[in-house]
């Protein structure tokens, strides 16, 4: 640390000298333009420039274009765009399928968030102990995260067929399994579980890191005060890891609202509209039915949902997230 501090004045001096030279070269009047502060500001902007360019090109520009498309009818075959104003926004209210799509989105996202966070926390608590083979279990639960989502979903598609592996397994113990992907209720359960099993490892790792950051002395003090395991978990563990719960909730909700491959590969949105979530509906409208205008309107609605939910969680954090500082 002392070495770092000793170097700081030298860093400050170097630009000062060059500034002085620049000032003399451009004339004696007024202070030099490239002050140390301006140089630091420029350096900062240069560091964030690639990210800013990325956000501008891949986020802001597409959002702007989506707004433009939502106000137009676009014949994709001829390239002709006709201004229709708020027609597509009005069509949202008249779309007979949209309520069912929103319900499926709510069920899917809610199911994924609740099961993913609960299961991730449960596994993390169970694996936050020292026992033989704990690393193997941690690796096992995390490994699906690194598997390609399409490959993962394809394999589960075969397993969940009526004559697939899961029903074959159930049959060995005398259970006649359902036709998982072809019945409305079991199809939704199937896509939720397929998503959760693949991604729960991420939340597990985040919770593990948070659990290991809880000071041991808090647990010792609680034990001395006679607190039981449940009290320790609800009064110490949960509040201490609440920032991580907030983070996982935001990431998991945003991820669930964007889940596409699972639906496309496993059910194609069926049976009926039972698993047609909003992002899949956007894809259908824009790319299957070539209704880019209405698809863009739906996409903007989805964006609004994600932003609203994130904002809501961010505002609520003061009430239930505990920060040590």
């Amino acid at each position, binding site marked *: 640390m002392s070495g770092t501090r000793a170097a700081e004045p030298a860093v400050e001096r170097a630009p000062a000298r*060059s500034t002085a030279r620049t000032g003399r070269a451009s004339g004696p009047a007024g202070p030099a333009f490239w002050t140390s502060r301006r140089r630091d500001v420029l350096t900062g902007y240069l560091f964030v420039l690639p990210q800013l360019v990325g956000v501008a090109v891949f986020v802001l520009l597409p959002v702007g274009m989506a707004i433009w498309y939502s106000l137009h009818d*676009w*014949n*994709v*075959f*001829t*390239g002709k765009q006709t201004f229709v104003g708020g027609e597509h926004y009005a069509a949202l209210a008249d779309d007979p*399928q949209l309520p069912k799509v929103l319900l499926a989105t709510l069920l899917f996202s809610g199911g994924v968030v609740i099961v993913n966070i609960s299961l991730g926390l449960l596994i993390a608590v169970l694996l936050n102990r020292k026992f033989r083979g704990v690393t193997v279990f941690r690796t096992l639960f995390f490994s699906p995260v690194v598997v390609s989502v399409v490959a993962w979903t394809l394999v589960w598609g075969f397993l969940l*067929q*009526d*004559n*697939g592996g899961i029903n074959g397994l159930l049959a060995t113990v005398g259970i006649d399994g359902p*036709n*998982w*992907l*072809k*019945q409305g209720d079991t199809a939704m359960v199937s896509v939720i579980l397929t998503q959760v099993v693949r991604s729960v490892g991420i939340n597990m790792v985040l919770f593990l890191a948070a659990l290991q950051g809880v000071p041991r002395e808090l647990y010792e003090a609680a034990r001395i005060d006679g607190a039981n395991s449940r009290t320790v978990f609800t009064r110490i563990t949960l509040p201490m890891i609440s920032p991580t719960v907030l983070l996982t909730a935001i990431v998991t909700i945003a991820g669930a609202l964007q889940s596409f491959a699972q639906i496309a590969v496993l059910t*194609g*949105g*069926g*049976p*009926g*509209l039972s698993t047609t979530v909003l992002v899949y509906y956007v894809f*259908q409208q824009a*790319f*299957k*039915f*070539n209704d*880019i205008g209405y698809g863009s309107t739906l996409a903007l609605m989805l964006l609004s949902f994600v932003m609203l939910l994130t904002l809501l969680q961010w505002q609520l954090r003061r009430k239930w997230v505990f920060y040590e500082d």
Partner: protein
Amino acid sequence: MIRTRKVLSAVALTTVLALTAACGGSSTGTSDKAVELRMTVWTSDKDQLKLFDSIAAAYRADHPDVAKITFESLPFADYNTTLTTQIAGGNAPDLAWMGDLSRDLIASDALLGLTDTLKATPGWKYDDLLGSVTAEFSRDGTLYAYPFSNSPYALYVNTDLLAKAGQKIDPASLTWDQVAAAGAAVHAKTGKAGFVVRDFDYTAWNTLATVWTGWGASAWSADGKTCTFDSPEMQKAFTFLHDAAFKTKAMPGPGTTADFFAGDAAFTVAQVSRASLLTGKFKFGLYPLPAGPKGMYSVLGQAGMGVLASSKHPKQAADFLAYLTDPENAAKLAQYFPPPRKSLLTGAELAANNKVLSASQLQDAVVDQLPDAVTLPNHTSPAEIAQKGKTALDAMWRADADVPAVLKSVCTAIKPLLSK
């Protein structure tokens, strides 16, 4: 500071060079002296692509103004989506294969009319085209796509499986009821599937036209304006299919896969061109579709190739299409795709290049079927009709389904699209 200047100079130089290179590339690509044509196709078969490349090479030898002809192979499942995305993105191919997208392309004036070019091409013989196969790709007497593949649906039979289950059929008088009975018996005795409508998979309901046409049913009226999905004929056809799936088990139920060509089913309804999937694992028979209550019928699956109106080189693209489909090259293509030319439509002609099917099989299953064949249901907005129909029809595939009510809901779902 000096180092900073050097870095900035290097970045500026690189940018200028990159822009120069990009502009240079662009100008070369659009030069009149270097016409480059691109055709999107959905085949990835090496032999077929090799044939197309060889025809293109022969064309280029006589047409030095065409520097390059590329056949871009797109996955079949996403072909329509990819093609429309390319068109919408301003990257449309010059030529394209098309199936059920043809109606939308023609209705949007996105295709170049071909009739004049083809008639003006010496030796092309426009009158050689069979009228029944050009209708799907024509509007107001103008042909917009050459129907290069006209493959009737036929009934493939795994005779080994039938023998194993002690079943016999008479192909000359075969009916759907007999197929269902034999299929149910095969399933009961061997555990293998009875009959499978290939590619249906309880999703692509338009393929069921290969069955319901035998009951005299159709999805909509001839002018495409009126839904007839809830007709009494359709109710009977779907009652037959529902019983086969849930009562007699002659057809595998939803969520159960059975590949005829892997030996997993006694019968399948598939296009004749699928015969290339037969590997000799079992003895097979190939027959025209079984008769329904309304008698014998035939159903056709078609594919066309056309020139996009947005092509930068429409004249050259149309000229190449005329060359690719002239009598000589059409005969070469016929080894893979049943042709639209009367002169090539004989069992013996088709069998000359077919390693799997005999001349008599091809005569019965292809040549004799083409003149009176109906095509699979096709309409503008095919994907939306398919999806909305499928969403409604999903309710059919439950053991306790109310067949007439479900068919009525299909009409409710697709009526607004038919009347567009």
